[in-house]
């Protein structure tokens, strides 16, 4: 009963008091709502963008076969068209359809001959697709109404493209396009446009007849997989039905084949980027965190502004609980409205970020397509809940403060502040520091895809930042007390004495800045150290004269590689001293996917290819039944072979063991790689294609002249000298950290807006002091100067504390999180110049914030 009465009163007061304040200061509240919107938008946008950017496997399935149910793979190597004969008996059932698939990557060229876009070319048995209702629903029709419809599958080079690709590349049916495929130029015709704009088919999808793709790719008879689609799609939801179908196919499959659920395969792919996605989500939560800080400051300022109103309400007998509820209601209303706006902001942000993230996924993990951004009901719920939760958390302290407001009779005595007593006690801050230290003992948790999550590292970072933030008030007061005897002039004395007194609002303002500064300086170190390490690595690693790869196709998205014929042809270049071709294939390790690479061991062993060795070749001895391999640091950490040992890898031809012979530094992705000799790699993978190659030319050869000549001779290949490759690699690096830089910028900007709001609240709370000072004759200029000194003092204390905590955060990021999540060691570099610049900017900004707050306050009274 009491609860209902109080709730009713709180709602009444929200309507009659709080919302009327909103009406009079609508600009302030609009800004607050916009801040929540940005925070929720950053989180929701990155979530939607990463989902759309990773829509690779399932997207293809949904687009083409209307979601296949199972995949058939061969245990003896890649499946081939020849396998179809042995599977004919199983395929004959009317209850399912077999769809053989070959996948490859091509580069679409523009009119000038430059690579315009990387595409995924899927080869399908077009004759069999007529069995798939979904495919026909998409409007796929090769017959063109003619009786000799099969002529469409003749020898002509033709492809079907999606509506979105046709739109973006301005292509129409029967247009001729130039593509680079397997290092060779090819002109093909657009036979048709698939689906409609509403189908949301990926922009990078191109379909051709299976034999055509095999022929173009010079991969005769090769398949990537055989998909199985159940005939009665209406029963898909029934697990028992699918289980029965699976059992029947499994029973009929000849030896040497295995059946996998498509969903499992899709989940496996998705899990590969789990750490990447998780790190992005954590980063995007930082935006939400700073937004919460700003809301806290703004609501706290509002509580100070309305102190007299609350005091009057208390005198009228309003309970502290209702005041608390009233303030929380207000915070949640800001959260709700901000979250709704955040969903719209997130949708727009996702549009902007999707291609950036897709490029990163393509470069680091696997070939991916982007799909249209879709805001799901789950996105809405998560966004709304997040916005509400953070707003409520942010509103908690001001609500507690409001609750402590005394009745008007006490307030009338003069400046009054209940403050947050716990901010004055170092106990909580020190406890958090200790807790952070203990959190470092937590081992990393294993994610589904085999990557690791440095849970202890993240917890320690959080504890240390917040612990340091809480302790920063101590530094502020101590610093001010040290300066007190050195403050001869009145304005300095007033300002420094106020800092030395260190009200809880002063401490809160410092704490907020400390969080932002420590995050920014920590990130500075991480990105700077990463970049520095990579540059050192480049210096050692990029010593070849020319780097050759398939044109327009980069990173892990490359599904073809260079054909053996082209590679052979390159090896006959007269200026060539030697060539180091790299072969890669993804295989399963004991704890998830990793890369099995093939390289010419003779070149590596002779030391002609430079590496940064963490364990030089010869450190470990061979192991019987295991092939010698050099592994990356990431691989060694992931599979626990830093001190040598053997690892079993599940390859296309079955389980194979490698023995670690040396460990080298590598900064590709968190899955690591193991390098075996090329013949071993080819035997294990049953593949022949190199992903790229490096050319070491004879001494005194003009590298760029050879490069230019080779570019003309091999228009399907990219030739880059080491400088060009370095620029390209650093470009990818910068793209990868662009989101981090943007979030850093948001963090520090919001922190200063928070400082401004905090200072305004401090001024309002000290209104009686300022009025007295005015009565005593302090000039306007002196008032501004006093406030400026106060603001600069807060910024200086925050800068010192924040940098100290930033150093700790940098250490955690570099020594713990990077090592545990990605398995690589970075050279810790301190960008001291950036720190100094940040400090100067901060103190200046603090001074300006102080002056601004005083000017605003003065104008108001």
């Amino acid at each position, binding site marked *: 009963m009491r609860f209902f009465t109080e709730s009713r009163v709180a709602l009444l007061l929200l309507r009659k008091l709080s919302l009327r304040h909103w009406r009079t200061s609508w600009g302030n509240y609009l800004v607050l709502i916009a801040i929540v919107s940005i925070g929720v938008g950053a989180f929701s946008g990155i979530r939607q963008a990463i989902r759309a950017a990773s829509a690779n496997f399932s997207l293809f399935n949904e687009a083409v076969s209307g979601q296949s149910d199972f995949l058939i793979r061969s245990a003896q190597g890649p499946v081939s068209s020849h396998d179809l004969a042995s599977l004919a008996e199983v395929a004959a059932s009317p209850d399912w359809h077999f769809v053989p698939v070959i996948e490859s990557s091509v580069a679409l060229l523009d009119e000038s001959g430059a690579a315009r876009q990387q595409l995924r070319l899927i080869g399908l048995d077009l004759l069999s697709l007529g069995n798939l209702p979904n495919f026909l629903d998409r409007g796929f029709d090769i017959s063109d109404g003619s009786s000799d419809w099969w002529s469409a599958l003749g020898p002509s080079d033709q492809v079907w493209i999606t509506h979105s690709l046709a739109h973006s590349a301005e292509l129409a049916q029967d247009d001729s396009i130039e593509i680079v495929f397997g290092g060779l130029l090819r002109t093909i015709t657009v036979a048709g446009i698939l689906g409609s704009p509403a189908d949301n088919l990926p922009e990078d999808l191109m379909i051709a007849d299976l034999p055509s793709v095999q022929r173009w790719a010079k991969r005769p008879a090769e398949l990537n997989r055989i998909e199985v689609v159940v005939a009665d799609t209406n029963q898909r939801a029934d697990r028992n039905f699918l289980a029965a179908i699976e059992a029947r196919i499994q029973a009929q499959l000849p030896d040497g084949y295995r059946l996998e659920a498509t969903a499992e395969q899709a989940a496996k792919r998705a899990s590969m980027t789990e750490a990447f996605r998780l790190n992005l989500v954590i980063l995007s939560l930082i935006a939400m965190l700073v937004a919460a800080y700003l809301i806290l400051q703004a609501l706290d300022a509002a509580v100070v502004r309305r102190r007299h109103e609350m*005091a009057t309400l208390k005198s009228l007998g309003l309970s502290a609980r209702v005041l608390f509820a009233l303030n929380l209601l207000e915070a949640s209303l800001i959260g709700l409205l901000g979250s709704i706006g955040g969903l719209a902001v997130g949708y727009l942000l996702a549009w902007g970020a999707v291609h950036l993230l897709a490029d990163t996924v393509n470069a680091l993990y696997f070939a991916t397509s982007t799909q249209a951004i879709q805001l799901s009901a789950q996105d809405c719920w998560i966004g709304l809940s997040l916005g509400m939760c953070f707003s409520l958390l942010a509103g908690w302290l001001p609500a507690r403060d409001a609750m402590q407001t005394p009745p008007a*009779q006490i307030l009338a005595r003069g400046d009054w502040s209940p403050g947050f007593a716990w901010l004055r006690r170092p106990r909580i801050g020190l406890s958090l520091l200790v807790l952070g230290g203990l959190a470092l003992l937590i081992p990393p948790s294993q994610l589904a895809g085999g990557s690791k999550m440095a849970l202890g590292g993240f917890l320690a970072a959080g504890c240390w930042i917040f612990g340091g933030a809480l302790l920063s008030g101590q530094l502020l007061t101590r610093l001010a007390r040290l300066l007190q005897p050195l403050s001869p002039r009145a304005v300095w004395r007033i300002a420094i004495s106020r800092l030395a007194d260190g009200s809880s609002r002063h401490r809160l303002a410092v704490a907020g800045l400390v969080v932002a500064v420590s995050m920014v300086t920590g990130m500075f170190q991480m990105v700077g150290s990463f970049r520095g390490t990579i540059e050192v690595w480049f210096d050692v690693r990029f010593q070849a004269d020319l780097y050759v790869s398939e044109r327009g196709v980069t990173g892990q998205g490359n599904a073809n590689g260079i054909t053996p014929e082209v590679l052979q042809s390159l090896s006959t270049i007269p200026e060539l001293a030697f060539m180091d071709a790299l072969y890669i294939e993804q295989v399963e390790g004991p704890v998830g996917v990793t890369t099995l690479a093939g390289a010419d061991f003779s070149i590596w062993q002779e030391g002609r290819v430079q590496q940064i060795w963490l364990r030089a070749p010869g450190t470990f001895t061979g192991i019987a039944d295991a092939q010698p391999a050099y592994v990356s640091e990431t691989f060694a950490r992931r599979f626990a072979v830093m001190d040598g040992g053997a690892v079993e890898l599940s390859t296309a031809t079955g389980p194979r063991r490698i023995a670690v012979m040396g460990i080298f530094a590598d900064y590709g992705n968190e899955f690591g790689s193991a390098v075996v000799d090329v013949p071993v790699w080819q035997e294990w993978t049953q593949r022949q294609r190199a992903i790229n190659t490096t050319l070491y030319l004879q001494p005194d050869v003009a590298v760029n002249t050879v490069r230019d000549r080779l570019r003309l001779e091999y228009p399907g290949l990219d030739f880059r000298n080491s400088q060009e490759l370095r620029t390209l690699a650093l470009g990818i690096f910068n793209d990868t950290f662009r989101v981090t830089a943007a979030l850093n910028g948001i963090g520090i900007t919001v922190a200063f807006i928070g400082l401004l709001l905090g200072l305004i609240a401090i001024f309002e709370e000290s209104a009686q002091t300022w009025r007295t000072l005015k009565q005593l004759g302090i000039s306007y200029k002196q008032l501004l100067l006093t406030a400026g000194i106060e603001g600069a003092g807060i910024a200086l204390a925050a800068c010192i504390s924040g940098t100290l905590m930033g150093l700790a955060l940098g250490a955690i990021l570099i020594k713990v999180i990077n090592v545990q999540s990605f398995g690589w060691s970075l050279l810790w570099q301190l960008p001291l110049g950036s720190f100094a610049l940040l400090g100067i900017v901060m103190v200046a900004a603090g001074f300006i914030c102080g002056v601004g707050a005083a000017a605003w306050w003065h104008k108001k009274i």
Partner: protein
Amino acid sequence: MNSNLESPATSTTPATAQPVLEVSDVRKAYGTVEVLHGVDLTIAAGERVALMGPSGSGKSTLLNCLSGIEPVDAGTIRVGSYALSDASESELERYRRECIGYIFQSFHLLPTLSAFENIELPGQLIGMPTTERTERVHTLLEAVGLTHRAGHKPDAMSGGERQRVAIARAIMHRPQVILADEPTGSLDSSSGGRILDLLESLSRQYSIALLLVTHESSATRICERVVHMKDGCIVSA
């Protein structure tokens, strides 16, 4: 509590009436400085008492103790059925909501509410039914002569008008005692005079006890008794 606004009590309060406020041997110290040294005071229902004394004599502290804002160190305070010394914070809040009305020197009206809404608020806080509440606000507005100002916000009113709204707000919930802290301190003498008349008339009309803290001896004219404080003690009554 008087539940019938329209049936005021008799205009004179018998001296033998039941005490509504009893203060017995109340002591209060801030740190080592004792501000109240065993204060005793009794006010009968409907009685109007002026509390006078120089600055620092303990008037405001006593008033704060009476309104349950400051706890006492020793002694007892009983207002109606409430014994403040033993009351919990929530009981004190209820006491302030139901039992007393407080009038401030600087009005303390809520700036975002109209005169009507300011007066209505205490009624809403105690859960008074809407019809009764509205009717009572209209009656009080009429009683304080501000019917025409019902929709105005405080910043559109004069000091005298604001204080009249504050008085109406103080009696909206039918308190047993009104504690008035220098209610005319922020007003000119003419407005102050009218406010005092209003207070007297409403106290009589609704039989509400009044403890008026004032510096001005002229303000005591509406009171039946004047109590003097000095150095934390009642020196004459």
